[in-house]
């Protein structure tokens, strides 16, 4: 089954890319924005039918490789 993981920067971590994107959007006329934070999104097809088990595997992946827990948080979403 497919499981997704969203990796976001923690609140206190500076995101210069997000800032520049914010400025660009602002310049394009999207003025009603207070902040932009950039993150990562993974779609992982796990050979596992049990949603709980599939999510647990992806959680382990996030902790060991996909996210760096010093600066990032992750959220796991079951997509299929």
């Amino acid at each position, binding site marked *: 089954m497919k499981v997704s993981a969203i990796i976001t920067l923690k609140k206190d971590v*500076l995101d*210069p890319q997000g800032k520049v994107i914010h400025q660009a959007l602002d310049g394009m006329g999207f003025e009603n924005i207070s902040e932009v934070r950039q993150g990562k999104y993974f779609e992982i097809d796990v050979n596992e039918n049990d949603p709980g088990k599939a999510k647990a595997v992806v959680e382990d992946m996030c902790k060991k490789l996909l996210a760096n827990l010093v*600066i990032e948080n992750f959220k796991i979403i079951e997509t299929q």
Partner: protein
Amino acid sequence: MKSSVITFPGSNCDRDMDVALKKFGFNNKMVWHDDNELPKSDLVVLPGGFSYGDYLRCGSMASKSKIMQSVINFAKSGGLVMGICNGFQILVETGLVPGVLLRNKYLEFICKNVFVKLDNKENSYFKNLNKDIFEFHIAHNEGNYFCTKDQLKEIEDNNQIAIYYCNKEGKIEDQYNPNGSIKNIAGIFNKEKNVLGMMPHPERMIDQSLSGEDGSIFFKNLINNIK
């Protein structure tokens, strides 16, 4: 004295490091990332470059490569492991040294000479050096050292800050911080001081006619300290 330089796919300072180590008397071996065993070594170096194309996060893929388990075991048994630039990024991803290296504050790739100041000489790398301020070269996009408040306190309490960005006179101020690193940190030790990660490249400062001699001073001293 035996040293090993690990080559990852995308490393590009591995041969420069090999030249530098040999010039100052190391019997150096190049070790491929896919090998399982480290040759007998007094020093292991993780070189600069763009291992695995900087995919995911700089150094993250290399930190999981086959040879790294041997490098981690070597470090945990007290062996000297030095990571330069991308090697530093690999070290933080293994957890051997605390913190992470973020994108440079102003989003630019920085390639220039900088001055750094040593903070702590009670270790095998800097012991017996007769000066504190060195001119080294930096070339990186992700050298912005970051750690949590708790980690910073622990790092400071254990004297783990190895070098700071400074000016020629050794003043450590914000204006001499090229990349936004917390506290101008350019290099960090592990708690035991046998693992050193730093962004500057001493191997690029080993020839007076090409660059400068501060790298020569560092390597000559290092081999004498290990002997």
